[in-house]
């Protein structure tokens, strides 16, 4: 569907999870609607979407904590749709961590092994190994209330990993951590996943989290999957306006397709004098409505009109400037009834010497290959 063609590297062999036609209804409310999904062995897969999009419900169905209303879930080739949670080769790290407060750290980690009837000395050895793996070696005797939030999360991780599940599910694992720790933990989770080689499925509402960690991302909205793709493909070639807008920041220009042939599309956008020309493999029908999706960092902002030929150009006036440290975002009015265009520009000089200020007339330009035309 896209021109980038980046296939998930780890997606070799038979998939570990196959979901087909999966639905979950609560009364008349449909939380998950007809989802098809395959997750390969060793993938770091992210379910991304706004709150209430059904991503947690989907994760809980994979864990066996909710039963599907319709459809099937196959895990490692076996139909597990209605197998209860305690019989699935899957373990979960809960959003609240759910560390048992009445047990020591070591007893928490060893809980699943104790249930399985593993001998006592082996439980101890494996639990200590698992704690070592999450860098909590020597914490075994502590009680959960003596741990920080980040440490409790590591206990939950060790407790789930010690059972050597085929899939590890993580429900919003970083949402309760503070910003600095969150960033460090992202890297650590990725490294951990590479070390243990277990398939990770993570639920998150934070697009930067998904982009930085996952090998593939499923973007969800209102119970359906909008697009499944690797991070770069998702960012550069979003399949819909929802995905374009949810992943990062985007400018959407609505127009009518005037011509579409030979990998080139021409759109007439109301409020913009010259038609916009874009390059794309997938061509929409002539006469249909299309949206040009442009990332703010891919647009040039200049005082003079650009000299190169073949550039799309609009002119406007700087109305708002947001200073973000390494970049500034200029909000430019290009037509009275169009939304402001966001253009981000690296602050290579100090702000006191910045090229544009409020009310400056500017020219915005972009090449025909730096955005996509969406039809939905």
């Amino acid at each position: 569907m896209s021109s980038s063609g980046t296939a998930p590297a780890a997606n070799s062999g038979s998939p570990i999870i196959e979901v087909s036609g999966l639905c979950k209804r609560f009364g008349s409310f449909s939380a998950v609607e007809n989802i098809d999904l395959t997750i390969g062995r060793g993938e770091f897969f992210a379910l991304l979407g706004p709150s209430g999009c059904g991503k947690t419900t989907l994760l809980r169905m994979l864990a066996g904590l909710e039963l599907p209303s319709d459809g099937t879930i196959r895990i490692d080739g076996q139909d597990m749709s209605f197998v209860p949670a305690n019989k699935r080769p899957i373990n979960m790290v809960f959003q609240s961590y759910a560390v048992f407060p009445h047990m020591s750290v070591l007893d928490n980690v060893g809980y699943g092994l104790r249930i399985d009837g593993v001998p006592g000395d082996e439980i101890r050895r494996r639990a200590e190994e698992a704690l070592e793996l999450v860098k909590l070696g020597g914490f075994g005797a502590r009680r959960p209330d003596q741990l920080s939030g980040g440490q409790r999360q590591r206990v939950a991780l060790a407790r789930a990993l010690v059972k050597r599940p085929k899939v590890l599910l993580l429900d919003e694992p970083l949402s309760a951590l503070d910003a600095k720790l969150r960033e460090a933990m992202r890297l650590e989770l990725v490294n951990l996943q590479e070390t243990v080689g277990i398939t990770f499925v993570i639920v998150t509402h934070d697009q930067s989290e998904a982009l930085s960690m996952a090998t593939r991302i499923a973007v969800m909205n209102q119970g359906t999957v909008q697009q499944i793709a690797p991070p770069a493909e998702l960012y550069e070639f979003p399949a819909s306006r929802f995905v374009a807008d949810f992943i990062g920041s985007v400018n959407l220009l609505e127009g009518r397709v005037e011509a579409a042939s030979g990998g080139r599309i021409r759109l007439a956008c109301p409020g913009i004098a010259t038609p916009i020309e874009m390059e794309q493999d997938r061509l929409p029908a002539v006469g249909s409505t299309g949206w040009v999706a442009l990332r703010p960092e891919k647009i040039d902002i200049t005082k003079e009109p650009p000299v190169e030929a073949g550039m799309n150009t609009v002119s406007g006036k700087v109305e708002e400037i947001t200073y973000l440290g390494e970049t500034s975002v200029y909000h430019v009015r290009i037509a009275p009834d169009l939304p402001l265009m966001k253009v981000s520009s690296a602050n290579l000089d100090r702000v006191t010497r910045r090229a544009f200020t409020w009310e400056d007339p500017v020219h915005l330009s972009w090449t025909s290959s730096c955005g996509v035309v969406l039809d939905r």
Partner: protein
Amino acid sequence: MEDWRRGRSAFWLIGLGPTVWLVLFFLLPLTIVWLYSFAELRGVVDMEVTGTLSNYARALDPLYLEVFGKSLVFAGITTGVSLVVGFPVALAIVFATPRWRPVLLLLVILPFWTNLLIRTYALIAVLRVRGFANFTLEWFWEQSTTLLSLLGLGSYQLLGERFEPLELLYNNTAVIIGLVYVHLPFMVLPLYAALEKLDRSLIEAALDLGASQWRAFLTVVVPLSMPGIISGAILVFIPALGSFLTPDLLGGTDSQMIANVIERQFKSANDWPFGAALSFLLMYLTFAALALRAVFARNAGGL
């Protein structure tokens, strides 16, 4: 605004009323009864506090010790049965939908709005030979017999010639039934409070780690609701130990509990010093139970 804890006059003003009330109507009468327990009878109603320990010596007579023992056993069984019956009830309320929860809680405390005496008499109407329990059993007996006759097995009289009503009243079982019935809310409410605070994801985590429902209940739900279990057990055990109306109305001749003996000393026997001594023995027992709980609570990390 000034911190009210530092405003000493305000503190004393607010505290004065309850303090006076407690001293006048609780501490003082209790002290008087305590003194009575060291008194000797002079004539029919007169008493003299002589500091004698004879009342306590008499209370430790095997005859009374046996009644004490029986009271402890009754209270213990009542606590156990209440726990076994109350736990599923509390769980059901916690897991009910938010719409049903207040309704179910109301049903638990509804009996409190009826006088204990009335409720106990109602229980008599249920348990007596010609009571509702036996009526129901008889109805089932008749239906079954009719069914058997229809099947052509009537002549064998498999269920007996006629219905024999069960003797449900005026025995120890009736006392236990009555005590459990009266004290069940005191078990359900603290259990509900403890279970309501329980994080559901802990149960889910146990299931996710491979535990069966039953195993998750035993290893996660029960230990984490221990404060509720202990509170409920104390709230049931102590009043059950001092019950006198229930064994009086529902029990047989051998179902006397210690409170019945105490009541008799103050009323029919008119031996206040001995009654006071028995009362205080019961009280010392209660204090010991509470002290034990305090020790337990400290060991469990201030639960």
